[in-house]
């Protein structure tokens, strides 16, 4: 089984896309419905880019690929993402 890290490792690349930190947001898996902070997802860094998988069912939640000046983000496996309202 390839080694994995966790969703904390997504903070840098996702900060290029979102204005708020997404790793503390709660994500709902599009397959099994498990809801957990993005930081608790399993992140596989050895694929091209970073692949985040559901900690319960292993479903692919998100894929981030950086290639030169392009960043490609797939959130197809995520049902919902719940962020805390930005603090004033």
């Amino acid at each position, binding site marked *: 089984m390839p080694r994995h890290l966790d969703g*904390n*490792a997504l903070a840098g690349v996702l900060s290029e896309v979102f204005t708020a930190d997404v*790793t503390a947001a709660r994500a709902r898996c599009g397959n099994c419905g498990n809801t957990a902070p993005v930081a608790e997802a399993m992140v596989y860094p050895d694929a091209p880019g970073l692949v985040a998988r559901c900690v319960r069912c292993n479903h692919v939640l998100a894929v981030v690929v950086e290639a030169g000046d392009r960043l490609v983000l797939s959130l197809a496996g995520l049902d919902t993402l719940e962020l805390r309202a930005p603090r004033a």
Partner: protein
Amino acid sequence: MNALHTAAMPDQPRARTAWHTATIVEKLAETPHAVRLTLAAPTWPGSEPGTHLDVRLTAPDGYQASRSYSVASSTPAGNVVLAIDELPDGEVSPFLVQDARPGDQLEIHGPLGSYFTWLPGRSDRPVQLIAGGSGVVPLYAIALAHDAAGDPAHLQLLYSVRTPAEVFFADELAALTGPTFGLDLVYTREAPHDWPDPIGRLTRETLAARTIPASQRPHIYVCGSTGFVETITPWLVDLGHSATDVLTERFGGL
């Protein structure tokens, strides 16, 4: 107090993530395989304890590599302390450990992460920190901030490390111990002379004996290699802690 704001401390605006240019102002040997880098980064906004940043290196041919490192400081804006363990096959850490010199410039991106963070005054429940190897770095930042704020909540650090020479921030951690901060070391390969405890991997029995019991409902932070975190976390749940009280961060040569 507004009903929507029930935290004990008023929320501060979170520092926005950005790229910053940092200059190495000091490089010290932290352990035989790790260095402590102090960086001057005039635009760095400061960071919450537990956060990390990305360091990006650019080779003369334009090839770039970046890696994440936890911030070891609880310091004012403009100043960053990192403790970096060399991974022999790494792309970034061998340069930082072997080749980087005071005066060199680095690109840093952060502060990053708001999940694995601790802030003074947020809770009066005790806090159990559990570190494996260089996973102690963000937990040291939390212990520093706890001390600097005079936060009354009890903080306990259980630190699993191979040998005495490989303890990060050994003197600083010893100096922080007191009525509200306790330090427990577990040596996995070699211990100081006359060390009373067995040498070897952290066991479930030691974890149970050396951590704050579930009856006190501690907030728990676990940081280490993936194997360390995934061994410890189920034990904590078996010991009666709620999985939602256990925050985890894995590292490993990403």
